[in-house]
């Protein structure tokens, strides 16, 4: 996958090219500076610097009271975030891999997501969970899942994910400032992607999609790493005169249905692209909403492109073929346009 750094919405200020992991680190560091109640907690976030180096150097800068290493205890990590958030702190709790959230599902879903509601709207949970997800790294079935659909289905949680360093930084800063529980899924395969990020402070609002490329013939609705496959597909098809719009939703919940519908009402065709298992994935929600709310605008069924119906296999040729790549996106766009081009 080429390292694309589409930045439709980046403001025109002084920028640098930095890695996604650095952008995330800046977000954390800046919010820790801004608010002394912000702290980081998780496995290997300190000495090790985070499995994907996001918190590298932060222990040295902030010390062990702001960068808190834990034992391997994901339910406890989730609970540390909840208890600290309920009592006046603003924790950023990291799961080393989103796959490990299975261990913490009760804490996340029954506790974090429901505390405010169950107790009558009095509690405030300024709590951010961060979690790497996605395949392509040869880490096999238990370290490569895309489980975002589980969380987007749970009222009380907000769910975000970024495709660029710019979005990553701005979204994470917004998340940390939220008085709600936000889960930020970070795609492992793009931590080392570089992109333009302005020097100064900015936020990317939660709940606002971003049109990463404008086009007229078909809309690809996607998020995270797949945004780049969509952009590559768009680039390839542009050579044939096919104009593809790429919408990066950035927030799964709240979902910016307006932006999606605006795009589809213009192009009349939609391909929903995601990296999770296709069956039952979040793309089904997007596709459902499009056909429900823009039925008369559609010239073709909303297509979905997602991963195979299998755990992620280890072997490289299998793994690479198990989730969508650019070729598959191109093919689906063509299918959506069948009879037109």
């Amino acid at each position, binding site marked *: 996958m080429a390292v694309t750094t589409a930045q439709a919405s980046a403001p025109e200020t002084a920028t640098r090219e930095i890695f996604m992991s650095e952008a995330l680190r800046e977000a954390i560091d800046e919010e820790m500076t801004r608010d002394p109640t912000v702290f980081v907690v998780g496995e290997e976030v300190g000495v090790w610097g985070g499995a994907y180096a996001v918190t590298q150097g932060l222990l040295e800068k902030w010390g062990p009271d702001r960068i808190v290493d834990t034992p391997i205890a994901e339910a406890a990590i989730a609970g540390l975030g909840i208890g600290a958030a309920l009592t006046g702190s603003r924790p950023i709790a990291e799961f080393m891999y989103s796959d490990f959230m299975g261990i913490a599902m009760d804490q996340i879903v029954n506790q974090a997501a429901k505390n405010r509601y169950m107790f009558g*709207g009095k509690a405030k949970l300024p709590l951010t969970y961060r979690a790497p997800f996605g395949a392509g790294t040869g880490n096999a079935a238990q370290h490569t899942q895309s489980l975002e659909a589980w969380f987007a289905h749970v*009222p009380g949680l907000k769910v975000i994910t970024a495709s660029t360093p710019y979005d990553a930084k701005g979204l994470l800063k917004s998340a940390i400032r939220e008085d709600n529980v936000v889960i930020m899924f970070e795609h492992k395969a793009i931590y080392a992607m570089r992109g333009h990020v302005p020097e100064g402070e900015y936020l990317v609002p939660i709940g606002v999609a971003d049109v990463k490329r404008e086009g007229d013939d078909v809309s690809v609705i996607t998020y995270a790493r797949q945004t780049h496959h969509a952009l590559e597909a768009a680039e390839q098809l542009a050579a044939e005169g096919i104009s593809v719009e790429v919408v990066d939703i950035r927030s799964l919940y709240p979902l910016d249905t307006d932006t999606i519908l605006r795009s589809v009402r213009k192009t009349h065709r939609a391909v929903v692209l995601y990296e999770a298992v296709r069956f039952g994935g979040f793309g089904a929600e997007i596709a459902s909403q499009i056909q429900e709310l823009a039925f008369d605008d559609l010239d073709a069924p909303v297509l979905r492109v997602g991963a195979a119906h299998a755990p992620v296999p280890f072997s490289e040729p299998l793994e690479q073929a198990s989730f969508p790549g650019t070729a598959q996106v191109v093919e689906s766009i063509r299918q959506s346009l069948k009879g037109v081009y």
Partner: protein
Amino acid sequence: MAEQSPVSTNGRAGGDDASNGVLEQLSDDQLRWIYLIMRRIRRFEETAEEAFRAAKMRGALHFYIGEEATATGVCAALDDGDFITSTHRGHGHCIAKGARMDKMMAELFGRTTGYCGGKGGSMHIADIELGNLGANGIVGAGIPIATGAALGSKLRKDGKVTIAFFGDGAGPTGAFHEGVNVAATMNLPAVFVCENNQYGMATHADFANAAAIHNRGPAYGIPSASIDGNDLFEVYATAKKAIDRARRGEGPTLIESRTYRHKGHTVLDQKNYRTKEEIAEWVARDPIERFVRAVNESERLDEDDFQAIDGQIEREIEHAVAFAEASPWPTVDVIERDVYVE
């Protein structure tokens, strides 16, 4: 009992009803407060049971009757700003942490004026503003949250202590182990109070836990104690020691408080997993009666004091029921409210 135990397991010398010097450490006002709280819990639940049987409320009600000394003794040793996490059997903790019965009753009735606007009910009752971080329908789940609150206190240096109340049934949960181990590794200001009422539903505590829970202190390198949970004074003294220790930054303590629920698991439970004799034995060790006897013997409070408090509680109860019954039902427009901070 672990070596480091702050209080002897073997019961205090001086017999069942004696306070072993603890009573003397409590002011008259504290004694009055303790009686008030224990009786409030008892009368609140008796009243709730009536209301339930009169079909005025629904859902799962788990009564704390018989266990009052544990919540009361522990909370008597807390400061107002301290935190607790509670359980499905949470009325007692809620009252002991200072909650009002009218708003509690209204919550059980499902009304807008309840603590949770009717959204929580009996199993999710709490006044977060009083430091009660929540009753919990998931056995064991309050424990990691308590650990988190204690971590928050340590990082914010706010000097607060958090109590995790949980049942013997929570002993086998992963949440217990993760929460306690993490608190111990980080030396957090938390006290883990196991209310061993002998059963989790029909399962005996000794079946569910391969060894008694108080044996786990050494597994986490923390003090642990097994105490008579129906002895208000032993509960108070043990909790006080553990809370003081936590507040001094010396880390968590595990307390196993042996007690008994007089009622079934829920208001509807009529199963026969306990003998009549066993129930009778425990009812004879009623924590409120034992407290009253000890206080009477000490001549610190007299019948008038107790009667005044009883009278106050009856007025509160009457008001609570009237308040709940007169309160409006929530309307459907609030269903999706309070999910997020807007």
